[in-house]
């Protein structure tokens, strides 16, 4: 025998299920007015510094069908690369948003400010990115990924440079489709499968 470790494993995940919206986005689920203030309605408020952008996309399953029930959370730095709570962070950036696939079309929209570069522990900065966490019925543990931007300098990003199959890097890069508008699709499985993270 050996001494026991002073450590206990993480509680296991379970799927968020088909009704996740009643808990996390009551208005979306048809229960408007449940709370005075819902969580994650917008990652920015009036006066946020930087370029306001809109990212649209869908979450596709392995058959190419766009999920109508996906729920996504995003987390990001402000336009100067500071996270909410850090010294000097933009008080108009909460950094956190919840958004859902449209129940009819499956398309989501995230309206936010473009984040700045974020320092890493090892010197080289991360290119501007938004972290995502995707949950839905049939997803047994939330899927983590990131949105990068095609009109930013992504060279040398410590995460993107770790992707061995270079064509797969594109799955993390939002395409510019207009002034301040981007498209970012998430493919859960199969051809063009998004790079998901264990981070």
């Amino acid at each position, binding site marked *: 025998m050996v001494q026991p470790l002073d450590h206990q494993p993480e509680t296991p995940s379970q799927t968020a299920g088909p009704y996740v919206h009643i808990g996390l986005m009551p208005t979306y689920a048809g229960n408007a007015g449940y709370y005075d203030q819902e969580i994650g309605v917008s990652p920015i408020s009036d006066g946020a510094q930087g370029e306001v952008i809109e990212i649209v996309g869908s979450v596709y399953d392995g058959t190419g069908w766009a999920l109508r029930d996906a729920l996504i959370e995003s987390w990001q730095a402000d336009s100067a690369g500071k996270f909410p709570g850090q010294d000097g962070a933009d008080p108009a950036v909460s950094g956190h948003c919840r958004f859902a696939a449209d129940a009819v079309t499956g398309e989501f929209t995230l309206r936010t400010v473009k984040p700045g570069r974020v320092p890493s522990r090892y010197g080289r900065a991360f290119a501007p990115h938004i972290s995502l*966490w995707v949950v839905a019925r049939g997803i047994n543990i939330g899927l983590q990924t990131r949105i990068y931007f095609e009109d930013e300098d992504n060279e040398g990003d410590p995460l993107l440079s770790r992707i061995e199959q270079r064509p797969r890097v594109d799955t993390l890069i939002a395409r510019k489709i207009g002034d301040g508008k981007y498209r970012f699709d998430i493919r859960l499985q199969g051809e063009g499968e998004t790079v998901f993270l264990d981070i």
Partner: protein
Amino acid sequence: MTDLGPLIPRNREMHPEPYWPDYKTSVARSPNQPLLSLESGPSEETGPTFGHSRFGALDNNLILNWTKGAAPAVGERILMHGRVLDENNRAVPNTLVEIWQANAGGRYRHKKDTYLAPLDPNFGGCGRTLTDENGYYQFLTIRPGAYPWPNRGNDWRPMHIHISVFGHSFGQRLITQMYFEGDPLIPLCPIAATIRNRSQLDRLVAPLDMAHSRRLDFLAYKFDIVLRGRRQTMFENKLEGM
């Protein structure tokens, strides 16, 4: 203790299988490719915070919150309570815990739920609270009913409450479900079975907790939640050029 080091990598053996054919929806929604494993950085080690001011007095009372206190929900009254801890056994104070559930008949107040059990006009089915300085939280609610769902021929979900927890960083984000001690549907449930490690599944089953029940009022169930911890040593290397 300050949070300094990276998050402890997730041990995926302790989690459900993403691809689980008996849970049919998972078949087309689970990645084929391996996940890209990396050490956490600022994006995972920071996370949103939520001030007390946004919470209402009844937010963690599901018996009363749908009617704003006007009339109680139908069902077996229970206290669901416990602590949020991390893998290093430290309390996670002041963090957001959200729950949602079916009513006593097994029906959700969601536009997509068409189960024939009726809605309870006095029950909404969601609640939220912040843990206190010791990581403790509590909800007053009713015990949800089991319900059938379209999967295999005749699948039923055991009684369960869905739980969402933030921790202090986005990399700790977790959604899980609490089951109830003694429910014979647990071993039949393909969603519970996605967790192949039996002792891990046991950790989702809340024991009846008579010491915290209140006579002539409610039963109690205890449910502790453990989030990822962070590595903390005085030997953190600042590797340049990695």
